[in-house]
């Protein structure tokens, strides 16, 4: 990673995997016991672990275990996906499994913010649209889906549907400014000015003001 501007993400194309169900929480996406690590490396294999494997580690029925969905880079989910804990381990695990974009009915806010920080779009559409896409993926596991962040559309087969992309997310991805560290660091002096106006901040707490 560099300090420079982040990558531009105008669109994502690839095969997809449907993950059905509302309120899929981050404890399901990555169980807490796999978070006892100090890096995100290697989290991919633990994505949805308890839904994918039984107590003896034998595979269970789950789209992530199916041969036809291996290599998928787009995930189609339902409502309130990613609710629960703030763990960035959740999108990190999905990303490291291979997911580059999500289409869903709705996303929990912290989860969507974490995805954006990784350059992963979370586009939304209504229930019927998402379920139709999930059914299409079922029938066409080898078919490419095109998630166009700039145009706010999703294309599968011969069909193109409108989706919603949060304004700030769209701008951040399309302009390549989703990695905000360098961007915000450039305003360090204005930050100090803001800090000094706050009654609870003491002079010595502002850097360079010793």
């Amino acid at each position, binding site marked *: 990673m560099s300090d420079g501007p982040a990558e531009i993400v105008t669109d994502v194309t690839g095969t997809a995997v449907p993950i059905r169900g509302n309120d899929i929480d981050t404890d*399901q996406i990555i169980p807490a016991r796999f978070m006892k690590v100090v890096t995100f490396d290697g989290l991919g294999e633990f994505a949805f672990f308890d839904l994918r494997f039984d107590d003896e580690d034998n595979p269970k029925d789950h789209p992530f275990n199916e041969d036809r969905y291996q290599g998928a880079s787009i995930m189609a989910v339902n409502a309130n996906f990613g609710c629960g804990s703030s763990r960035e381990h959740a999108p990190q695990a999905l990303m490291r499994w291979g997911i580059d974009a999500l289409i869903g009915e709705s996303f929990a806010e912290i989860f969507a913010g974490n995805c954006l920080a990784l350059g992963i779009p979370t586009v939304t559409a209504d229930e019927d649209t998402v379920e139709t896409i999930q059914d299409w993926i079922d029938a066409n596991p080898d078919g490419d889906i095109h998630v166009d962040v700039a145009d706010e559309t999703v294309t599968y087969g011969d069909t193109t549907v409108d989706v919603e992309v949060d304004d700030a997310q769209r701008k951040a991805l399309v302009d390549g400014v989703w990695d905000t560290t360098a961007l915000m660091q450039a305003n360090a002096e204005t930050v100090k000015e803001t800090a000094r106006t706050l009654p609870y901040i003491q002079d010595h707490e502002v850097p360079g003001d010793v």
Partner: protein
Amino acid sequence: MSQGTLYDKVWDRHAVTELPTGQTQLFVGLHLIHEVTSPQAFGMLRERDLEVAYPERTHATVDHIVPTADQSRPYKEDAAEEMMRELEENVRDAGIEFDDPTSGDQGIVHVIGPEQGLTQPGMTIVCGDSHTSTHGAFGALAFGIGTSQIRDVLATGTLAFEKQKVRKIEVTGELGDGVEAKDVILEIIRRLGTDGGVGYVYEYAGDAIESLGMEGRMSICNMSIEGGARAGYVNPDETTYEWLAETDEFADDPDRFEELKLYWESIRSDDDAEYDDVVTIDGSELEPVVTWGTTPGQGVGITDPIPAPEALPADKEDSARAAQEHMRVEPGDTMQGYPIDVAFVGSCTNARLPDLRRAASIVEGREIHDDVRGLVVPGSQRVQRAAENEGLDQVFEDAGFEWRNAGCSMCLGMNEDTLEGDEACASSSNRNFVGRQGSKDGRTVLMNPRMVAAAAIEGKVTDVRELEAREVVTNE
């Protein structure tokens, strides 16, 4: 858009500039960190050769992985020891104050901030933990963030953020006997849904909220996130100021207290503030609430029947059916009598001194059921000492509970305290997700701490009001 609310005022005071994305760069007044979500952020900082910009506005503790039984080092679990060492090294290098277990001030991050007076009205507070909303009880704008955002805050003291809408939730009237803050928030989530708060900040108001102490307000704000709202707050008032006056920050500095109080008063929502939405709930109608399912929104009054999935909104039907199968409950039944194996009093929702006192008042002179494993885990070392000074540890131990050291413990499966197999747990924590308490077949029933105490004694989910009405039985 809202106007004149505490949220608007605190936002405006902390807005640095507008970013090219249209987001606001927001100054962070207090950054709390812990061992689980910060090491990767420090790693990113090292990769980019960046330093911590505001170390004096950053404060660390250890809570998620810390063992609550044997805390001698090295920890028995290698992974826990590694995470602890990483945190120790990171805070030492950056010059960040760290309340480790040898300090006497360690505890759950959302317990130690308020008890030390770090948490104050009109602040922006972030932490890599979704229950950061807890600090909103003081009239702070507090929310959870992910690890890449922790990197941003460490490196710049700021965060790129979008302004949200404000929903006022007015809880009117007086809460009935045996009804607590926990029941209020479980009811709010049940009514508005686990995603009802997405895009909103919740302002909690009304007589039933204002008459609560700070601990009760914290329990409510804590679970804002379970309702989908990233932040929730209560306007600061005399109750808030009384708490703050006694904290480390102000006990010896009354001048600073008076000076800041002017600021605190100034950021209260105006009487004519405009909200994006207002919801009113009659607090006097509520009874103790328990969950029957696997999301915090799947709750029911203790005397009410568990709903049939098909009676719920269409989008809740499937998950309700799956939840009832997992929990092994039947529609039409009440949760009373649901057998439990474990009773857990703890977590950032309900492990402060008054929570322990209330649970102890139920336990005193009684014994927990033979088939129940009971665990009381104070939220911080300070809570632990205060409770021990009052003899609460003895009350719990005499009744058969284990009295542990401070930490997140059985709220989440990240330390030695977990459910085994398909155990059912009466829990004062905040999440009943499948697998949350460390066993994927485990079953969690959320409830207030007195209800947990009652369940422990009876070995099944029990209406604490009925238990209390009965005569206290001493050892026969």
